[in-house]
């Protein structure tokens, strides 16, 4: 059975020959991934495997760096570097902080 990443030969319609400049958020995720890769904490292969294991529901819904983010959180939990509870608690804090400064509204409108 094909995993969600295994798309070679399927048909997803025309290629949208568009590109976008990465946002700071995307650049940060890209850079964190590169730093932990360079430090030997998570290899490219581990990153690929975690993304492939997101399953169709998640993989097919998220955009590229959203998949990387989901994968990064999973890797940190699996390696015992962070816990799910820690991450959940910090997500609540960050959300509140962004709501307090009004940034959350801006992003959700984007």
């Amino acid at each position, binding site marked *: 059975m094909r995993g969600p990443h295994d798309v070679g030969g*399927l048909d997803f319609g025309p290629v949208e020959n568009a590109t976008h400049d990465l946002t700071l958020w995307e650049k940060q995720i890209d850079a964190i991934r590169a730093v932990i890769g360079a430090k030997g904490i998570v290899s490219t292969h581990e990153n690929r495997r975690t993304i492939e294991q997101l399953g169709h529901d998640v993989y097919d819904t998220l955009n590229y760096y959203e998949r990387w983010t989901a994968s990064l959180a999973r890797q940190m939990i699996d390696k015992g570097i962070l816990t799910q509870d820690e991450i959940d608690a910090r997500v609540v804090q960050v959300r509140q902080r962004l709501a307090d400064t009004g940034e959350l509204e801006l992003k959700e409108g984007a």
Partner: protein
Amino acid sequence: MSTHEHHDHDHDHHDHDHNSPPQPDDKVHSYYQILGTAVKELLIEKGVVAADEVRRMIERRDSITPANGAKVVARAWTDPAFKARLLKDANAAVQEFGIDMPTTHLVAVENTENLHNVVVCTLCSCYPRDLLGLPPSWYKSKAYRARVVSEPRAVLEEFGTSLSDNVEVRVHDSTADMRYLVVPRRPAGTEGMSQDALASIITRDTMIGVAVVEPLQN
């Protein structure tokens, strides 16, 4: 996926295939931005990564552009001995430009009158980042990854690239360990140009193989 906002808090690490995909009204995009920020903050606080390392990595990744690859191709166009080295051992050849790719096997493939090469990563987004920078969005899209291996001519047409039927099209599927650089054909009318001038007409898309270097207009 238990890192999702509406996970059921059972903290099961193996529930990747659960049945509650993010809904459009979940404000999914902001959720993953928040998750990314949360993970970044925690990793910095725990000393796993330093804020400075992340900042410098962003700068470094931003500084790599397709101009790197263009310099390599322009040299190959003008220096037959270099081209031979590039096609034989691309890792060693790009090291002559100070580009070090220690963990990746780099393969340079040359377009000729009868052969056109195209690069894809069907499984994800592997790409010669040290030569071309970060991949464009379309390279990472499912449409490109899925179709360029089965109908490359049709996909190339969508990029405005028409190849004659007698040109063989060869599609190279990259992996984490093996990445490709296309050496496009040097167009007519460029005989007297310097390497720098040649490099300026070699675009990213021609080194992925979805475009050809256009002949000069004048």
